[in-house]
């Protein structure tokens, strides 16, 4: 459990600094609050660390998402311990350093919060005992790195650098996730322990190359290996404590950590050797060479970091146990000397105001103490004897000599290693000589520079002291830790090796000497080299990457805009084309296998049908002539109503007819505001395309209709015919279905009508059409006065129509009719008054707001439905009884009739709400025009 808490601590700690900042704590208190949790974690680590040195592996497991195989499982073995020490130890030093580095204006609370977030994530990566958990923390390190690189968000370089790092490492993270999931598939578990034990199964699996590729993609992006190295120099836009911590000592080591962690699982194959060592070798050389040519202090260190990461990768790639030991050793050494160098660079930047080595010269005079520290660390980086870098570099040289994989080409490895060493010495020499000697400073923003605050140097001192201690007395200082870490890496016993400064005169020593001398020689020729370098075309990864990204974004925009081109015609065409495709592919003559007896065709029907066809075609062809189109559309509607009459559906015919009239009124009212003619819009190709769609879909639906009509089928409708009278109390089965069997549909449907009215009201309420008396082409609006004939006919019609409505309503349950139709007839009669006599006339006589009518109608329907609960029945259960009414005679009263009254009211209210407001609009318009 200690382990789980240990990892949790930095996350908890991330809350403290912002809190302290808010409480107005001083910078020192703020920094202390940041340091509190890591320090505590370091203390807590002592216990388990002892166990690790005793050869145990400490585990902790908190269940989290077993369904996914994701557990809060932690393990502390030697490797994890080593990294935990690095993360916490260097982390604490960085916090101390940052206390002095950040200026008073900066939001230190936020900075420390991000830093601690990262620390927790990194601690999670190194201690995870679950592969998915590892990926989770892995991505968290990328995210916190994104925030830290972008900390100075006002700087364009910081934003771009952050995004670039996020993109590259994010890509790697996703690949790693895929790789881990595949490992899980092969192993059958996401436990790291299980996976490590299943190395042979994984290597034997057909998925191995894919797994390796995906995992390596994650590793190489994170550890800035060629060809993904380019993000790291641009991450240097981050504040220097971040560079020291994330981008040299820890986060970029997550990649090589994973090489170590997965070593027993994935290493040992030729594929591993080829890919890992090749990437490592290229990175080593490329980074080392590029480092020499950087004028930016941090740039030099960044490329040097890339180079050293390449060295470590190469070592792991060599597939020998000793090489792996050397790699682990170099991880330790690099973390110490590089973090101290970054801190020194930060101090120099801080004191001089620049990082340009062409301007910073001769600082020895101004800050000798810092100079000594930096020089020692640089020497360690160069691999000078008596310093830690020398030891691991010796081991590295030795291992390159051992590998036999390349056969006759084996000399390539030591040659490359030596060459890398040469450049490493050269840029280290440059760091020392250019900065501290080489004449006088040139035009520094801050002059004269002096030594930094006392405690800002402490972290550097500690790290440099470690470099020396390890370099001089390796067996006392580091060998224990290295042994446990290396044995955890190899997952077994350690090979025999000996940490000492002096191994006698041998080939590795010679290589070291060559590297030292060669490095100095190269550095001495620097001016010539720089001139050659400047002739090369400048490659700015930031510009290139950003340029590519912008091109990608533009291409994405262009593609999106092409698909989503803002044209309804094209969207509708996609939809209808999909339908046409379905019909073309699946509609076959096989559907026409029906045996049903056909009905004879009579002349009247044929004539009516022909009329419909002609009218529909006229509507389509002459749609630009508004009046004609509306008239022919009405003709179509009329024939459809007639068809319903002919085909035994009187209710439908009545409904269709009344809807037809209301729609016609609506269109007439609306036309008042629309251009009288529609523009010719479509070119021939589009017309042709649309015709094809029309023919395919129309034809297809027609064929399907024919197929259905000509085949027999079994349906549930017999039940309705049998039960309408006995169960629903009505003889008009259609009406009983509407108000009883499927009353819920009707409930929904009148709601739709009501909502449509609401929506229309909302659309019309603040609509301003007055200004638009003609459209942008100057087509005039139609104008008409209220025709006298209509006025004289319509007024007496109203009471008559209302009477008819009542009749239709009452008989609805038994004969064609019902609430709908009655409602529509009433509406039509009322609307006719609007059309004939004008809105003002009607409004003097009727309420203006129809919202409550709709509401009452819906409520009536709804409450009728709910009422059945009180009789112990579900919603909308009807009951009925027979009454004897004078004149009408025996009459059945069903609760469904109440429901139907609700329908009636809703229909009237909704229709009037829609049309009356449209009418009101025209009234306003009239007034406006008269006024003008």
């Amino acid at each position: 459990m200690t382990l789980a808490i240990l990892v949790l601590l930095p996350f908890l700690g991330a809350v403290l600094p912002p809190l302290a900042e808010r409480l107005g704590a001083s910078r020192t208190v703020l920094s202390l609050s940041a340091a509190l949790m890591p320090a505590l974690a370091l203390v807590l680590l002592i216990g388990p660390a002892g166990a690790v040195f005793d050869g145990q592996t400490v585990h902790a497991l908190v269940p989290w998402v077993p369904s996914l195989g994701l557990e809060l499982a932690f393990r502390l073995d030697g490797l994890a311990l080593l990294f935990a020490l690095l993360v916490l130890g260097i982390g604490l030093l960085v916090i101390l350093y940052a206390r002095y580095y950040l200026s008073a204006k900066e939001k230190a609370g936020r900075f420390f919060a991000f830093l601690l977030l990262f620390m927790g994530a990194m601690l999670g990566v190194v201690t995870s005992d679950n592969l998915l958990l590892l990926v989770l923390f892995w991505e968290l390190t990328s995210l916190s790195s994104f925030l830290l690189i972008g900390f100075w968000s006002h700087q364009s370089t910081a934003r771009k650098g952050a995004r670039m790092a996020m993109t590259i490492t994010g890509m790697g993270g996703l690949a790693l996730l895929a790789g881990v999931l595949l490992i899980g598939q092969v192993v059958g578990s996401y436990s790291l322990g299980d996976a490590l034990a299943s190395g042979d199964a994984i290597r034997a699996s057909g998925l191995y190359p894919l797994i390796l590729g995906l995992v390596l993609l994650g590793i190489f992006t994170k550890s800035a290996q060629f060809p993904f190295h380019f993000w790291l120099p641009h991450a240097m836009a981050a504040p220097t404590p971040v560079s020291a911590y994330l981008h040299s000592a820890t986060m970029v080591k997550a990649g090589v950590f994973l090489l170590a962690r997965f070593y027993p699982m994935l290493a040992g194959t030729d594929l591993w050797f080829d890919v890992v060592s090749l990437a490592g070798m290229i990175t080593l050389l490329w980074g080392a060479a590029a480092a020499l040519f950087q004028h930016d202090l941090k740039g030099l260190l960044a490329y040097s970091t890339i180079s050293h990461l390449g060295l470590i990768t190469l070592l792991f790639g060599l597939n020998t146990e000793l090489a792996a030991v050397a790699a682990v050793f170099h991880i330790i050494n690099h973390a110490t000397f590089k973090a101290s160098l970054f801190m020194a660079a930060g101090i120099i930047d801080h004191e001089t105001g620049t990082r340009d080595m062409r301007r910073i010269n001769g600082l020895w005079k101004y800050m000798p103490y810092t100079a000594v520290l930096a020089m020692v660390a640089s020497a360690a980086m160069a691999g000078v004897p008596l310093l830690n870098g020398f030891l691991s570099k010796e081991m590295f040289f030795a291992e390159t000599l051992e590998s036999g994989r390349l056969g006759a080409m084996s000399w390539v490895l030591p040659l490359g290693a030596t060459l890398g060493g040469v450049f490493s010495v050269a840029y280290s020499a440059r760091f020392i000589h250019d900065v501290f000697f080489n004449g006088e400073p040139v035009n520094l923003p801050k002059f004269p520079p002096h030594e930094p605050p006392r405690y800002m140097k402490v972290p550097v001192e500690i790290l440099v002291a470690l470099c020396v201690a390890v370099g001089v007395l390796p067996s006392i200082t580091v060998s224990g830790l290295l042994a446990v870490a290396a044995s955890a890496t190899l997952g077994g016993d350690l090979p025999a090796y000996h940490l000492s400064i002096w191994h006698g005169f041998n080939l590795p020593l010679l290589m070291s000497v060559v590297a030292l001398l060669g490095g100095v020689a190269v550095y001495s020729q620097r001016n010539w080299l720089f001139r050659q370098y400047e002739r090369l075309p400048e490659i700015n990864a930031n510009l290139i990457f950003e340029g590519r990204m912008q091109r990608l974004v533009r291409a994405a925009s262009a593609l999106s805009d092409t698909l989503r081109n803002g044209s309804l015609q094209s969207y509708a065409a996609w939809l209808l084309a999909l339908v046409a495709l379905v019909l073309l592919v699946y509609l076959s003559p096989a559907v026409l296998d029906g045996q049903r007896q056909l009905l004879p065709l009579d002349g009247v029907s044929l004539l009516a049908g022909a009329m419909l066809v002609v009218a529909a075609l006229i509507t389509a062809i002459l749609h630009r002539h508004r009046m004609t189109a509306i008239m022919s559309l009405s003709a179509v509607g009329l024939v459809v109503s007639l068809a319903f009459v002919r085909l035994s559906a009187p209710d439908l015919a009545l409904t269709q007819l009344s809807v037809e009239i209301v729609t016609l009124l609506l269109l007439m009212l609306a036309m008042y505001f629309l251009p009288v003619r529609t523009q010719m819009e479509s070119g021939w190709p589009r017309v042709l395309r649309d015709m094809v769609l029309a023919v395919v879909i129309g034809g297809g639906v027609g064929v399907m209709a024919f197929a259905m009509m000509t085949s027999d089928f079994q349906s549930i409708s017999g039940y309705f015919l049998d039960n309408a009278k006995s169960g629903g109390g009505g003889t008009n089965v259609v009406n009983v279905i509407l108000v009883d069997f499927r009353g819920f549909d009707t409930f929904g449907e009148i709601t739709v009508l009501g909502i449509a009215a609401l929506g229309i009201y909302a659309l019309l309420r603040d609509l301003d059409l007055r200004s638009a008396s003609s459209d942008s082409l100057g087509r005039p609006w139609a104008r008409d006065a209220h025709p006298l004939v209509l006025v004289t006919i319509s007024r007496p019609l109203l009471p008559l129509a209302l009477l008819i409505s009542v009749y239709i309503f009452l008989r609805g349950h038994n004969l064609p009719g019902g609430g709908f139709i009655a409602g529509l007839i009433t509406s039509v009669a009322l609307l006719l008054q609007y059309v004939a006599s004008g809105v003002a006339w009607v409004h003097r006589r009727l309420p203006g707001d129809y919202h409550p009518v709709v509401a009452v109608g819906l409520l009536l329907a709804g409450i009728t439905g709910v009422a059945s609960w009180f009789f112990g029945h579900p919603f909308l259960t009807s009951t009925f009884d027979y009454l004897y009414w004078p004149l009408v005679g025996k009459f059945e009263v069903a609760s469904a009739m109440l429901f139907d009254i609700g329908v009636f009211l809703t229909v009237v209210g909704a229709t009037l709400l829609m049309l009356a407001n449209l009418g009101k609009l025209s009234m306003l318009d009239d007034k406006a025009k008269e006024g003008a």
Partner: protein
Amino acid sequence: MEHLIIAPILIPAFAGMLLLLEVREHQPLRRFTGMLSVLALVPVALALYQQAAGGEIQVYRLGDWAAPFGIVLVLDKLSALMVLLCTALAVPALLYACRADDKRGANFHALFQFQLMGINGAFLTGDLFNLFVFFEVLLIASYGLVLHGRGPARVRAGIHYVVLNLIGSALFLVALGLVYGTTGTLNMADFAVKVNQLDGGALELARIGGLLMWVVFGLKAALFPLYFWLPAAYANATAGVAALFAIMTKVGVYSVARVYGLAFADGALAGLGRDALWVMALLTLVLAAIGVLGARRLGEVVAYMVVMSVGTLMAGLAWATPESFGAMLYYLIHTTLVSGGLFLLADLVARGRGKLGDQLVAGPAPAGRAGLGVLFFIGAVAVIGLPPLSGFMGKVALLQTVPAPLYWLFLLGGGLLALVGMSRAGSTLFWRATGDGAERRVDRPRLAATLLLLAAAPLLAIWAEPVLRATVAVAAQWAQPELYIDAVLGGGV
């Protein structure tokens, strides 16, 4: 309480009706009624979920008519989950809208309630034609809501949305004609039984009917090539409406799941349109990711993320194993809540930037930059699917259960594109900002509504196990259509 099942439909319906009676446009009273309704839905939805989780499928026979003759409501785990999700989204969405947006046009509150009625009805109904009716209820209400407020951009997007859906409704009717004309029934369970007894021409017609349903549901869900209307409609809608609409696409997904699970998982038309849905889902996924990358407004970014989630979900559905369906449901919960929250957040950002709104160009820092920045970061991490939030859990679950290389490639690659797009958007809005809007405060209730939704990201991650167990249980029930059919038809098949 046997009638509780209809409450998610009736509560908003009656609330909507009462809101219509309130003619004086007294806004506080309207807000109170609306909030009361959605808050009343919370315990109802929870109780229903509790009930369904027990494993029994409740069938509510409207009008007391037996299935397949009358209409039934069916409460199984899937419908209960969807109703609960809708409720969870509705509360913050309405809370947000109540801060002022509801005054920008008439009848907002009534439309909002009817919208909920339609959505819940669609989730609960066990009848295909009734599903059509509820589709129409939710559509007509959504037309009103999409157009709520003013401005040409909204109207342009609205016309597209309305016309396409009207065509969709016509297609739905054709499909229903085919359903009835071949099987002679409209009840979903009965249809599932009868469709397997068809042969010859009738079977072919039923096949086309099913495929047409996929087209209609695909339009609702916004699958390629039917999603083009969505970004403009959602990005231009009022924030509360856009947030609520995060569930609208899921109505389409749900409908496919429901009909497919019952009728086409097995039998004569087994796997109907699965391959097509799969291909469309993958194309949706990648094209929406490209859309995220190329978007010019934050609202569009989020809208494309919604489309992307539809691709992700539909692929999980088309894979059609109980495991993938369970994973898909987890992702569905996550994406609905988080993208709803992001729509609200986009509005908060736009409000704090004055005339620039949510356009992705450098400008003044939005009011409350630090806080909104943190929220954006959390929302972005979640919606992209990075750890440690809900999106990551959902993606891992889907990757584990849909082991298809192409899906992995598109899901992970799409995630990368979304990552690039989101980081550009965030960097432009929050980092490249001039000045600091620290003095201007973000409206508290709006912030609270946004937080409520975005809180889903960490909460769903922390309790990923119970949630996943729940969705897997839903999926297990979904994968046994006979349970549903027996419950509806009383076992007397």
